[in-house]
């Protein structure tokens, strides 16, 4: 049960002028599962290593329950980090790998055996204790790495890209396992990923870091509905950005005048809406006529490139809805006001 806070955490690597991480402040409540999301090189792994004590911050602080931990050695912080490539010790059996942390704490051999057995059951690998890591599949290695971390009952668990090395079907299995273990043990968990899908699927809250700076820290759905700025929206797959003027209730732009949802900002801004929120068919509200420039069939959906006047609009639709429209011909579309969001 540990509340983690990062206060203006900054890291400038020797010989570099640009900080790899620039004044990151985050509050991670007890028992929550938080994602640090960002492209590679954005400073998220650096953040993890500073929390784990494997790197020293240039400035700023890390506190657990309001107590700074920066002076504590890595082995005394109660933070365990699970690396992306698992890093199981290749010369040890699975059971010895899992029991490693207890052995380092000089726990009794019989006690270690008992708890390793429990852990193997927990991660659903009851019969594999005697195997070598090289004899396991990627998914199994991931479970062993997780078991090896959880057996020491860490205050804070750090996961580096926990799902990215797994096949699609294993991802959901592992997601469920991580979530259920994390909830059961109530461990404050932080994981880093470059994959927005992984972040959304796994985390309670997501912190998006771009170029070493925190861009937005929110529940996952907010990133899709109300992104903080264009960079955030683009990172989450946003493609439609239309400059114009907001009156608070309507938006004037090259697309004409569009009705806005309540509480929209006023003044100069950029209108954004997600491709999947562009609806096919005519409507009284925010109805437009577009020319179909291109269409790409993707199986469960169809991607459309539309042109309204001189403005390009990207849309994703159900293949059934767009069956008859031909490239070069007109398509009636509308943009529901609640799907619109104005960026400053």
């Amino acid at each position, binding site marked *: 049960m540990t509340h983690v806070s990062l206060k203006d955490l900054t890291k400038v690597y020797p010989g570099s002028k640009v900080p790899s991480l620039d004044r990151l402040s985050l509050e991670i409540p007890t028992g929550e599962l938080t994602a640090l999301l960002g492209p590679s090189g954005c400073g998220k792994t650096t953040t993890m290593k500073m929390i784990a004590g494997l790197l020293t911050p240039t400035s700023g602080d890390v506190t657990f329950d309001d107590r700074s931990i920066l002076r504590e050695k890595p082995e005394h912080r109660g933070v365990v980090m699970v690396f992306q490539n698992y890093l199981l010790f290749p010369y040890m059996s699975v059971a010895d790998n899992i029991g490693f942390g207890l052995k380092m704490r000089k726990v009794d051999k019989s006690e270690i055996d008992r708890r390793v057995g429990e852990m193997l059951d927990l991660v659903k690998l009851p019969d594999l204790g005697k195997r070598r890591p090289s004899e396991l599949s990627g998914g199994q290695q991931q479970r062993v790495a997780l078991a090896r*971390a959880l057996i020491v009952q860490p205050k804070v668990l750090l996961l580096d890209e926990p799902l990215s090395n797994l096949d699609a079907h294993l991802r959901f299995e592992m997601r469920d396992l991580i979530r259920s273990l994390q909830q059961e043990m109530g461990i404050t968990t932080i994981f880093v990923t470059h994959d927005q899908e992984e972040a959304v699927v796994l985390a309670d809250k997501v912190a998006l870091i771009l170029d070493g700076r925190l861009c937005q820290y929110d529940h996952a759905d907010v990133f899709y509905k109300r992104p903080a700025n264009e960079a955030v929206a683009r990172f989450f797959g946003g493609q439609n950005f239309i400059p114009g003027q907001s009156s608070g209730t309507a938006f004037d732009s090259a697309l004409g005048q569009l009705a806005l949802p309540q509480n929209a900002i006023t003044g100069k801004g950029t209108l954004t809406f997600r491709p999947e929120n562009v609806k096919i068919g005519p409507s009284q509200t925010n109805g437009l006529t577009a020319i179909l420039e291109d269409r790409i069939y993707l199986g469960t959906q169809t991607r459309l490139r539309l042109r309204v006047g001189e403005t390009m609009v990207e849309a994703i639709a159900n293949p059934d809805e767009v069956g008859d429209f031909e490239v070069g011909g007109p398509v009636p579309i509308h943009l529901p006001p609640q799907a619109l969001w104005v960026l400053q």
Partner: protein
Amino acid sequence: MSDRLKIFLLLAPALTAIIVLFMGGLGIGLARSLNYMPVIGLVDPNFDAYVTVFTSQEFYLSFLLTLHISVTSTVLSSILAIGAALLLRRQFIGRAIINFLFQLNLTVPHLVGAIGILYLFSQSGSFARLAAEWGMISRPGDFPALVFDPYAIGIILQYVWKEVPFIGVILLANMQALGEDYESVARSLGANRWQAFRHVLLPLIFPGLLSASVMVFAFTFGAYEIPAILGPNYPAALPVLAYRKYTDVDLEARPEAMAMAIVIALLSALMIFLYVRISRRNIRS
């Protein structure tokens, strides 16, 4: 052409050299050690030479000295090489230069190094003279005997000087390939610095360390020139003893020399076997 044949043909030149030169030499040596030399009329093989070898006290003293030289040199070089590799894998200013200096004596021949040691450490060498000059000892002859001494300190010094960079370079490459993440994992699981080294890094670099140190062991066990230059006269290291027998004016001593050479070969094989076993058991369990 089948793969097997292809592999055989590709290996043929190396195999020929090994079989003809190495096995051939060993075969002739074995024959002579058994007093079998048809050219001079000896056609009834016997074990007389081996009996002479195994009943002489000098042989056992020489064996102990040789074992002491190889074990001490190998262990010391390995420990120092690990330390050096641990330092050199870090990032620091001037690392490239230090690394270069560290590897420099890989290029210096053993013989040259041995003569250097002789000049520096013998009782008439530079250090003895300096120590006498600065009044630390009353005359150079009082300088502790580090060369031609019964503990073979000069020999071990020379081997360590030469072999630390050899093992170190292999370990450094090994460590750089591994990175530091395994140790980070160990630290975050609760291992302190020493535990992370002992239980994670050491076992991981162990295969490299073992092959490098076995080479050092085998070399120091069977090498002639360094103990010949820096070693005590009695007991002499085994290879020195064998060579002395071989060049004895008495031709009768030749089978004995050969017997000794064969015994050295067998002993070093046995020692390597034991060394590998013992270190495997202790490092990786």
